[in-house]
């Protein structure tokens, strides 16, 4: 059976993404198991007795060869078993569940607000290219890009939670909370994430739209005497979808990193906080699991961007 070239390409991309994820799992495992530095030593500290170290190594199965340990770990992961935390013996998968949901909730709202806003601002900047709205937007985004996420977080907290008590400085969420309360609680972290992602996304959206607007076919449309709105909607937009989607996906990846920091700033019980806490405790199974989840989300977003740009490419959809 002969597949349509697009289907063929899509299958290829998805297979490539899965392969990449597998390679990433090797890298993460290697990063924690093979680097200089002894895991048992890392857990017990410098003062541990040799006997205690030997016992722990035995208990963790550290005496097996690396590839055996990797496949044991991978086998577990594939069955949804992420192992047990070293620090408290809890099952990682169940501990992670609720937090993953919290993080998704946070990231979802940040994305819902920032994506349309970034595209709109990008359009405005292109429409008024070189004039004051463009310059103001450029200056503001340049400053936000130059700030680390936690700084944006504390400035927002200082202004909106301490000076003018609009929001709380700590984002407490718990089971059985009403939807409205939940939204109010995450308002500040969402605001910060939006600011952080928006700047990058808007700058790149602007460049992508500008690129399309300078193309010869937009000039052709202009010389047909079409209205500016028609030109943008009919000629610029269909060709700008792929680059914009790419930009959006690429920047949603910033969310993955931004979320880690923002959760720590606002003491929000999500994946990021979970990861940072366990890095400090040197709880390797948890860190491995979190790293894998974050990398999976990141690779997934990039894969989605690829898929959408393949689908929106007329050369691929309608081959010769």
């Amino acid at each position: 059976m002969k597949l349509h070239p697009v289907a063929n390409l899509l299958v290829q991309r998805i297979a490539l993404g899965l392969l990449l994820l597998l390679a990433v799992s090797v890298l993460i495992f290697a990063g924690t198991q093979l680097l200089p530095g002894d895991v048992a030593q890392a857990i017990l500290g410098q003062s541990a007795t040799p006997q205690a170290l030997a016992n722990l190594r035995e208990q963790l199965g550290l005496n097996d060869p690396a590839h055996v340990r990797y496949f044991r770990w991978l086998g577990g992961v594939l069955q949804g078993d992420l192992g047990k935390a070293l620090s408290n013996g809890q099952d990682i998968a169940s501990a992670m569940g609720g937090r993953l949901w919290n993080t998704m909730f946070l990231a979802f709202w940040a994305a819902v607000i920032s994506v349309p806003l970034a595209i709109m601002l990008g359009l405005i900047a292109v429409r008024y290219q070189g004039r004051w709205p463009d310059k103001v937007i450029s200056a503001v985004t340049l400053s936000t890009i130059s700030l680390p996420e936690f700084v944006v977080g504390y400035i927002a907290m200082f202004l909106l939670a301490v000076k003018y008590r609009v929001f709380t400085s700590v984002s407490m969420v718990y089971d059985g909370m009403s939807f409205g309360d939940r939204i109010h609680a995450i308002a500040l972290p969402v605001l910060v994430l939006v600011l952080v992602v928006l700047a990058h996304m808007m700058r790149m959206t602007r460049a992508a739209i500008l690129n399309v607007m300078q193309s010869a076919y937009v000039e052709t449309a202009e010389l047909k005497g079409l209205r500016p709105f028609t030109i943008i909607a009919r000629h610029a937009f269909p060709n700008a979808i792929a680059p914009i989607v790419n930009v959006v996906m690429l920047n949603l990846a910033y969310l993955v990193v931004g979320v880690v920091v923002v959760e720590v700033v606002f003491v929000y019980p999500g994946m990021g906080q979970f990861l940072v806490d366990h890095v400090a405790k040197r709880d390797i199974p948890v860190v491995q699991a979190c790293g894998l989840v974050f990398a999976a989300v990141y690779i997934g977003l990039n894969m989605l961007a690829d898929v959408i740009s393949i689908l929106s490419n007329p050369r691929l959809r309608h081959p010769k």
Partner: protein
Amino acid sequence: MTGPLLSVQNLRIEATSYPPGEPPRNVVLVEGVSFDLQKGRVLGLIGESGAGKSTIGLSAMAYGRGGVRLTGGRIMLNGRDIRTASAAGLRTLRGHEVTYVAQSAAAAFNPAKKLMEQVVEASLSHRLMTRVEAETRAVDLFRQLGLPNPETIGSRYPHQVSGGQLQRVMTAMALCPKPDLVVFDEPTTALDVTTQIDVLAAIKRAIRETGVAALYITHDLAVVAQVADDIMVLRHGKTVEYGTTDQIINAPVQDYTRALVSVRSKDHPEKPATGTPVLTVDGVTARYPGLALDVLKNVTVSLEAGHTLAVVGESGSGKSTLARAITGLLPPLKGRMTFAGRQLSNGVAGRTKDDLRELQMIYQMADVAMNPRQTVATIIGRPLEFYFGLKGAARDKRVAELLDAIEMGKGFADRYPAELSGGQKQRVCIARALAAKPKLIICDEVTSALDPLVAEGILKLLLDLQAREGVAYLFITHDLATVRAIADSIAVMYRGQVVRYGPKTDVLEPPFDDYTDLLLSSVPEMRLGWLEETLAHRKMESAGN
């Protein structure tokens, strides 16, 4: 309504240039240009790059590309001054009264929309006809322009049709809303010469049958002579000469026009054979890595010392690939090559320093053939240092001699490539090749990117150097006028094969093979009526078969 359709008086066009590190500067692109265009007439605008011909053409739509401003004069279209018209007023006239055909149809079509949608778009948006009417008209135009499958070609996407076809669809798009005036901006320049003649004929027929007026912009006087009623010769944004096509071609008044008319008629007498080949290529077959297609098929040619072999063909014929095979950049799969009596190793890596030194190359784009961060002295001096170990004063002296040889003078030694004109850049590249004291120079389309008069100067220089230094040229080109001006022998290439090969006079004399006939007869000649004669001749021949 009486009076001309388009009347341009004392046009002035300016733009702002942004030289690096300096404050922005105003440049005048066009100054004091005036002309009238009557209904149904065709005016040719001709000039070299930078003459302002496209800028003037677009001014008929009151359009300035990328910050270009129409700052003075009057542009009257159908009795209204459009230079000062409002944006809304311009929208009603663009795509309705005046339409545009761009040089690169491939870039000018929206890749995401079907052709038909784009062809009828202006007619619909200006409410000139219903969709059914517009599509019927489009199909008629497709047929008139000689497009294959006129009923269905509209449902294809731009990337699904060839360049020559796309250019015709673009012409149909311009004619669909029944405009009064069409601006053709170099519509055949990007096409191969055998494709060009058909597109040119189609455009000419469409202009005549629809009775539309046209501004036809091109750098090729022979092309414009076939379609225009009047011609305006432009240089540096000013009018050089303006008259009927007959007067411009047959009785030019200005020196510049005279030079343009005579530039293609140079002929170089063929040198007698000597029998000592400097290069032989024997049964060479080559393909690009990863592609299952031979781009060179069993090519056999040879070149005598001090002679010029012209390799002629259209894009994709394999002529540049032959150069890459000889230089060793693309090692052949089969065949052997000898150079200066020695067996030539297939790849660059296996060649001796003498092989490399005695076989030099000059490129089409002198811009990218020179490192922009090196001065002329470094560019020419490096081969002297590398091959002959010349240093310091000895090197400087030789660089000065070479600069003299290319008629530039040692004042240019400290300049960077960006500070040279197109012709000067190509001369420096020639000096760099000469510095190695080569036996053979491969010239890959070295005059194609240059304006005709500059190109003529380069050809003359190459001939002088050959007479003085006895160097042989392998001259790759698609332009038959250039071949006449420089070659001793010719190889015609088509789809990777040499289809005709021999001394110049033999190759250019009948009887021809089919392809050479097609190629030779497709080259526009600098006289009125050439297009009709050729087409009539071809029709007769095909009827005879």
